[in-house]
């Protein structure tokens, strides 16, 4: 177990380092001179520009810039905002809880709705319930979140006044954004769980269970579901990453103060260090989630556990 863990950890670190390079490349591609994020091109003199260049360090060779950037990032120094000199990492950390809450809430929504409907759909295959669930699932993956979010605001805030349309304080503000983001996720999970269940239901061991006189309820919910959830779990891991990214849009729709909001603002303002910081930060989170999913995978599935044990033995 420890060996597999270290192996996974090492490969995760490699991936994070790769992401570090990637982020630098993307941000370096940004056209325009970062100097003009601070200075007004109309009034700046050549001396002022040169001075600012030196101050920002963008006049140095590329590899030196990269070295500084990478070294800083790895030590937790994400640099400072070009706009207001605010350090980037503390800013991200301050805004992260709002995003995390939204990600967790929407993931839970997606998992609960998705698994429940997926199982129902598979059990009632080809009956009307299945058809309805499949259409719901299709809608889930076909609706843009910014539209479903707006519809939810329209219905539940503007017309019914049940939940606030914006803000990031209190659980009430979480309901609508989590729902609109969770709907997308549940669309994916419904489809995955349904197919996964159908595959398991056709496995020979289901026939064995029935031949033992086990009730259909137990066959489905105790045996088939547990087998079907194993592939679904990995998908949920991938999905959490997507939901995390999805907050960029949804935080704009609901005016939430999360890191998604920070990056879309920073992009508009060409505030490089902030953009870099947020992307790199979310890459780390993404890798972490996958690490967790992989580990829980081996706890749930005895086959994976055994594979690991065997790998360790050899």
């Amino acid at each position, binding site marked *: 177990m420890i060996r597999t863990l270290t192996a996974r950890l090492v490969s995760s670190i*490699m991936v*994070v380092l*790769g*992401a570090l*390079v*990637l*982020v630098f490349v*993307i941000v370096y*591609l*940004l*056209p325009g001179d970062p100097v003009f994020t601070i200075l007004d091109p109309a009034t700046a003199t050549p001396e002022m520009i040169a001075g600012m260049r030196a101050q920002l360090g963008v006049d140095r060779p590329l590899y030196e810039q990269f070295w500084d950037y990478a070294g800083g990032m790895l030590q937790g120094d994400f640099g400072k905002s070009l706009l207001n000199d605010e350090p980037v990492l503390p800013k991200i950390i301050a805004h992260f809880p709002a995003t995390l809450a939204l990600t967790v809430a929407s993931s839970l929504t997606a998992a609960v709705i998705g698994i429940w409907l997926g199982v129902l759909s598979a059990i009632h295959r*080809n009956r*009307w319930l*299945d*058809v309805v669930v499949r*259409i719901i699932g*299709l*809608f889930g*993956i*076909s*609706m*843009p979140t*910014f*539209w479903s979010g*707006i*519809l939810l*605001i*329209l219905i539940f805030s*503007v017309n019914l006044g049940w939940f606030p349309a914006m803000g990031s304080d209190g659980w009430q503000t979480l309901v609508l954004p989590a729902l609109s983001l969770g709907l997308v996720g549940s669309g*994916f999970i419904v489809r995955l769980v349904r197919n*996964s269940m*159908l*595959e398991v239901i*056709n496995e020979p061991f289901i026939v064995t269970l029935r031949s033992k006189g086990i009730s259909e309820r137990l066959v489905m919910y105790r045996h088939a579901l547990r087998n079907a959830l194993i*592939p679904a779990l*990995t*998908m949920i891991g*991938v999905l959490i990453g*997507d939901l*995390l*990214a*999805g907050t*960029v*849009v949804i935080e*704009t*729709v609901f005016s939430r103060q999360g890191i998604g909001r920070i*990056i*879309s603002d920073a*992009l508009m303002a*060409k505030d490089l260090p902030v*953009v870099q910081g947020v*992307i790199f930060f*979310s*890459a780390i989170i*993404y*890798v972490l989630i*996958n690490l967790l*999913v*992989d580990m829980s995978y081996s706890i749930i599935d005895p086959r*994976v556990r055994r594979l690991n044990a065997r790998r360790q033995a050899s």
Partner: protein
Amino acid sequence: MSAKESVLAKAVWQETKPASPAVRNSRKRSVSDFLVYAAGAVLLFIVACALVPGWIAPYTPTEMLTDRIMQPPGGSHLFGTDYFGRDIFSVVVYGSRDSLLIGIASVAAGLLAGGAIGALAGYAGGIIDMVLMRLLEILMTIPGILLALAIAAALGPSLANIVIAVSLSAVPGYARVLRGQIMSIKGRPFIMAAHSIGTPGLSIFLRHVLPNSWAPLLVMGTIGLGTSILMGSGLSFLGLGVIKEVPDWGTLLSQGRGYLTVAWWMATFPGMAITLLVLSVNLIGDKLRDRLDPKHTRG
């Protein structure tokens, strides 16, 4: 990551194994057939909107009817009018072109690039495969929309740049699916049979492996079309779209958002157009998968 890969591949492929004597209730079958026909009709209509908007839209999209500002849907304005007095239905009809174009172009570019990488990795194997897959893994750590956002912002607002941004985020998916399929085909007995006959390696790859591998990629492309349209309109929504006289659906929705309390129709209808388009594409993609998946036809 192999477990995840197989799951991802499964999500687009090989997912529905029919029960041994394949059974379908004929009535339900007609429901799903009806849905596919309906999706086809919607898609055809939207394509027509993109090709010949003038035949469908009752007004030109730039025509401002200053006496009819922010009129609710009904009467001569199916979707109502906006704050300039433009007919929203007409704007939506004209806006279909960019939305559709972004989707199709990004899928085409993504399929080409991803397919090439996947084919190369699958054919070469060994160290080339490993390096390519590691690079894709890194690319995948930055979730789709974030990557597209960063790239679109980096390259500046133009249609081509949005296409690049959206397609790049889809490349790893396409590459992995094709590679996975190639790997599984390579292990099939008929490949060994071809080797035993003495067929040269490249010929085996081109005649046996590739023709048996592309089907999942096609299915994934169809489903990817929906995702690309969503992502493209998402970028527009965030303000990274092209500023034009006739806005695309994402931009339109973003503009309408400010008037939610006074004119709900301004944001609702462009969003509905996006949803309908993506829904139709996904329905057709599902059908395509059912048809192409060998497990469906063999049983």
